[in-house]
Structures are given as C-alpha cells and as structure tokens.
C-alpha cells in the first residue's frame, strides 16, 4: 500500500477557540477510514482542511508527496473528491446535470464528452438514482438527494474520496448499500475517509478508525485492534457495549 495522504502538525483555530491542533498521520491506498467523534469535535473541519477547502492555521497536508497548496484546482479535483455534509435543496438542476458536474475536472471541452456521460451513468446506476436522472434536484427527498451527491463524487473518480456523513438521510437498506459502495471503492485501491456517527457501520465496513476528541486524534487504530480493545467506546458514551452478532460480526449495543 502506498502512502497517499500525509498530514503533519495540522492545526485549525478560530479567533475564539481551537478546533484541532498538531495532528499528524498518514493514510494509504486501499484504506477505508472511519472518522468519528462527538458533535463539534471538528470532524468536518478536518475533512474540509484535508480537501483544501479550508486553510489550516498551521501544518501541512500533502497528496502523493505534493502539498495541497501546490496542486492546481483541476488537478487536485482529479486527486481528491469531497462529499459535503449538506447542500442547498432548492437547486434547479436535474439529477443528471448535477452528477455530470462531478466530471468537471476530467473535461476539457464546453460540452460533456461521451466518456463523461458513461461515467455519470455508471455512478447513477451504482447509487440507484439512474431512474431519477431527469428529475429536478429540488423535487427529490433527502435520501434521494444524498444518493445524487454521492453519485457525483463517484463520477469524479478521484484517488482520495472524502465523505462527510455519506449515509445521512438514507434508509437502512440504502445505508448498507452506501457503505458497500465505499468499501468497494477502497478495494479498488482508493483511499476513502468517511465521517460517520454509526459505530456499527464503522466496525463492519472500515479498515481503520480515527476518533477526534479534545482537539486531538485520540484513537488511530486498525479496525481489528479497535474490536479487540473497545476502551475507546467510552469516548462516545459510558453505556455502550461491544458484542457480536450470531454470525460473528461486531455489534455495539447500549445498556
């Protein structure tokens, strides 16, 4: 596995408070990392800073050994895709138009190429929104909208995929499909980092766990280690217990 992402001494501060400070870590191709933490821990800010959407107060983020500030906007978008936590619901664009926006960094012409349309169609089929392709975005439900945004990220076909709560608004079956998809992307050699609050999804699908608390990355473990020593669960609630389903999968329940 190659190191794709290198973060060194990364800090982000507002004038009134520090979100996180002095974070250093590496992440490799093929990893699927769950980024977790309580509300306000700084997960989205960290994801945005890694994506180059927010400027860090100090420290560096590098992809393939090149600092995020040295990438051109277009080249960076080929390297890194980012699913935002939320987006305006009243957009007048059709589903297909929005998904095709994911192809922007790959297109050099004013119109979408045949390759763009093929990639967009494949992404829509994978996220079960092909049948909605002609509908306007504002006519969709929250879950349908989330699948469209996910499709746009998949159509972008970047090496590093950053997802901010990818399964929010999705029904249970779609949540499972969503995490299946992300795990599939990681198996294809991509680095996927997903902010999630679902501990069971994290333990079942991801290969590594990050927990952000008190401005630091307090947990950075392989999922197998996290299953063996569940002391980190206390960071979320003292009522949580780690057990197993009849078929041996980890299952977190509460007292």
């Amino acid at each position, binding site marked *: 596995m190659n190191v794709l992402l290198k973060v060194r001494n990364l800090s982000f501060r507002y004038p009134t408070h520090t979100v996180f400070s002095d974070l250093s870590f590496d992440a490799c191709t093929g990893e699927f990392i769950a980024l977790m933490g309580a509300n306000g821990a700084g997960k989205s800010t960290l994801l945005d800073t890694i994506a180059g959407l927010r400027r860090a107060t100090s420290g560096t983020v590098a992809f393939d050994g090149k600092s995020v500030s040295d990438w051109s906007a277009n080249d*960076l*978008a080929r390297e890194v895709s980012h699913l*935002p936590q939320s987006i*305006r619901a009243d957009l007048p*664009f059709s589903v297909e*138009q929005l998904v095709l*926006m994911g192809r922007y960094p790959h297109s050099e012409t004013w119109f979408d190429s045949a390759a763009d349309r093929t990639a967009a169609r494949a992404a829509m089929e994978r996220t079960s929104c092909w049948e909605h392709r002609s509908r306007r975005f504002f006519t969709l439900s929250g879950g349908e909208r989330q699948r469209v945004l996910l499709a*746009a990220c998949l159509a972008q076909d970047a090496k590093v995929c950053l997802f901010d709560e990818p399964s929010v608004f999705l029904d249970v079956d779609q949540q499972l499909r969503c995490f299946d998809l992300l795990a599939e992307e990681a198996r294809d050699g991509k680095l996927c980092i997903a902010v999630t609050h679902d501990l069971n999804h994290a333990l079942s699908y991801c290969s590594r766990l990050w927990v952000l608390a008190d401005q630091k990355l307090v947990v950075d473990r392989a999922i197998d280690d996290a299953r063996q020593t569940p002391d980190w669960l206390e960071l979320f609630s003292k009522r949580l217990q780690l057990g197993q389903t009849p078929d041996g999968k980890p299952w977190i329940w509460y007292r």
Partner: protein
Amino acid sequence: MSRAEENTGWKVGVCLAVFCIAAFVLPWIGPDSLSWRDTFRSGSLDFYIFLQLRVTRTLLALFAGGALSLGGTLFQAVLRDALATPYTLGVSTGASLGAVTTISFGWRVIWGMPGIWIGALVGAFTVLFLVMAVAATRRRVSAFGLLLTGIAVNSVCSALILLLYSLVGVSRSFSISRWLIGSVDATGFRPVGVFAAIVVATAIFVIAQARSWNLASVDEQWAASRGVAVRSLLVNGYVSGSVLTAGAIALTGPIGFVGLIVPHMVRARLSSDHRILMPCAFLLGGVLLASCDALGRVILSPAEVPAGVILALLGGPYLVWLVRERL
C-alpha cells in the same frame, strides 16, 4: 452530436433567430409610418429616420437589454441568489450616482463625450473597485463579502442621489427623474458600435465559463472541490457583470428589471444549465428591451413612454404569474 449539444444548439439557435428578426423588424415600428421605397433612398427623411434614429436605437436596446440580462444572470450565479440583479451589488446605483452628479452640476460634455455616459462609467467603476477592495480583505473574495459590501455601497449611493436631487433646481431634478426611469434614445452608430463590441466580447468571455458557473451556482465548496478556481471565477464574474451593467446604464439609464425577469423566464421555460441560460438570457433580454422600446414609441403616440416603464408594467405581473405557476 450528443443530446445535450443538440438541446443547447436548437434553444440558442431559436433565441438567436428571434434576436435577428427583432433587429430587422423593430426599426419599422414607430409613430410615423415609413415608406418602403423612401426608406432605402439615400437623403430622404424616411432614410434618416430609419437609419439614424430607429436602427441605432433598436441596436442599442438589443445590446443594452442583452447586457443587463446577462449581467443579472451572472450576479445571480455569483451570489447564488435568484433575486440578485445588477442593483444588488451596488454597480447600478454607482452608475446612477455618477450620471446624476453630471446632471446636477450641468456637465453636459466631458472629454468630448456626453457627460452622463462618462459619469455613469466613472460611478460604476468606482463602486466596482471599492466593493472589490473591501470584499477582498484577508485575501479572500466570497459571495457573502461581495453582497454585504454591495448592500452598504448601494445605500450610501442611493442617499447621495436623493441628496443631489433635493439640492438641484426644478429643471435639473426633472432631468434626474427622467434619466432614472431609464429609456433608450437614439445615438450615433459609433457609440452603439463601440458599446456592442464591448458587450459581445464580454458576453463571449462570460459564456465561455458557463460550465464553471453551473458548479459555482450550487455552492462555493462544491465548485472548489470539483476543480473550479472559485476565487478568480467570482472576480471575473463580478468585473464582467459590472462592465455589462455600467455600459448599458451609461447609455440607457437604470433599467435593472430586465436582469431579473429574463433569467427567470429562461430558467423556467428553457434550462437552468448556464450553457443554455447565459446565451439565451443575453439574446432574449435584448429582444425584450427592444420590444418594450418599440411599444413605448407607439402606445401613446405622439408621446413616448420610456422603455423602463413599459418593462416594469409588463414584466412585474408576468414575474408574479411565473412565480405562482412554479410554487
């Protein structure tokens, strides 16, 4: 050719055809009917009326309407606000303040050109640089920063216009009111030609970036994470929108409504894709203003109703109907 390209092609093609038809037909509309034979006889009165008055006036309306409509579309994309117009960011009010200042002080000619034109251009570009300078503090330009600064500049310019209006005499205050209504008057071929060249060049520059505007109109982060250089796009959009607006207002007065109604109409009837929206808004904006001007020439003949009044009277109810239909 793909479906999207065909779609764009025929929609823009139809709008272009309507624009060309308007350019040929509208000069024939006016209080005095023109004789077909005399119109094409050099030296006749009809030849003079047709070519020097009606044709230049129609061309001015077509390009000014197009500029204001494309300017409105651009500002709506910059601010991601469907209610944004060339007025929202202060450029229009800055141009008005410049023009009103020249009327108030009686500066009819500046540097050999009509004082109102120069005043409007100086006013618009002063506001442009002021808003950019304030909004670009901390080396970051954001739509929110532009909006807040634009609103502040807008209110100061409006107050200064009212101050000048209250200080000047009756005849000048009438001239100010007349100019502020907005109308299309006959001008020579030379200024119309220069104006049309600037508008067309700016429009081509803007429309070439239509794909990026699709992403920017969704969300700044959405666009940035898909490879759009958002900061330079916003600056380009604001400067281009200001050039289009300032030029049009200098020649016609503040007819801002065309920048609101036409983009909405195109979005509702044709497409939200800026590759269709921008060229169609430009072409139909021109047709709408030129048609209102032609109507204003005949509706209360021999008196003339300013195009700005016709546009507001027809456009207001239409916009309400459009909004009700979509809700």
